[in-house]
């Protein structure tokens, strides 16, 4: 932990595999998305999303936007009010601190390439 100019800066300690998606959110002035990968893998096998639904295995690579979700692609295949809760619960996905970059949280690559620390209150 480093203390500089009154701010305590510490690396974020969220769960391994929390995927942050911020392709468009900051520009649209809404909180970036946090996709809890660990939550979904408890309930579905990898194949359902990365085989059947076409999710690319890289954070942000599927370039998901709300139009695709409304059309039943990607998240919209389940988050339609039938299998899982529907997309009107904006805040449940769009829950990251504004400005959080797209990332696979705590991934080896992220740890090796030393991401910018996130300000902690």
């Amino acid at each position: 932990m480093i203390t500089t100019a009154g701010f305590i800066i510490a690396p974020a300690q969220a769960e391994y595999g929390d995927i942050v998606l911020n392709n468009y959110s900051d520009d649209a002035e809404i909180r970036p998305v946090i996709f809890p990968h660990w939550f979904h893998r408890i309930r579905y096998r990898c194949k359902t999303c990365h085989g059947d639904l076409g999710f690319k295995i890289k954070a942000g690579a599927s370039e998901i936007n709300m139009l695709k979700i409304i059309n039943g692609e990607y998240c919209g295949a389940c988050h339609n009010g039938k299998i899982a809760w529907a997309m009107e619960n904006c805040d449940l996905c769009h829950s990251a601190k504004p400005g959080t970059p797209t990332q696979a949280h705590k991934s080896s690559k992220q740890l090796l390439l030393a991401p910018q620390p996130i300000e902690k209150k």
Partner: protein
Amino acid sequence: MKMNNTYLMSALWGFVGAVTVSGVLAAENPNVFNRLFTPPDKAVQTINDDGIHDPQSPAVGVLQEPKQAFAPLEKSISGNYVDWTKSLKKQQINPLFDYQDPAKKAQPMNLNIVMEVKGSTPDVVFPHDIHTELLDCSVCHPQVFVPQKGANQITMAEIMLGQKCGICHGSVAFPVSDCKACHAGKPAEKKAANKETKK
């Protein structure tokens, strides 16, 4: 009696003092015994305080906490600190194979691929079994791995930078710190094999 009380009180204060002093020392001592970058109790915060969720977000308090979800599952040494394979085999989790048809089951392929490794490091034993439990062939073949034995040269550097096995292992599946999970070949057999090649 009064004597006893005094002894008791001084012993008590001595104890409190010792606790306080050691507590202060622990907080200020830069050489506290800790081999890990992050102490285990600080490894995963609550969603409210994990550094990426906005504490102001209405999602806080609604979303499931990782600690709660992982409590009943088998433990491991890294990543989510959950042994996902054991948890699946013990049916502590029952993830669906098809999101529309809960009855559809995986058809695992029982084939281990042994990849020879330089030096004394145990060989890699890649189990198709658990991977086909979770995945379709087409997720890995042929884009990531050529489906031919010996055709895929993989380095640890590539894995740690998110290539080959590292596409999943090191971002969502157990990371490279769990060496023996992949390097599972028997060292004794390996040594014997090395001697034979030298002859």
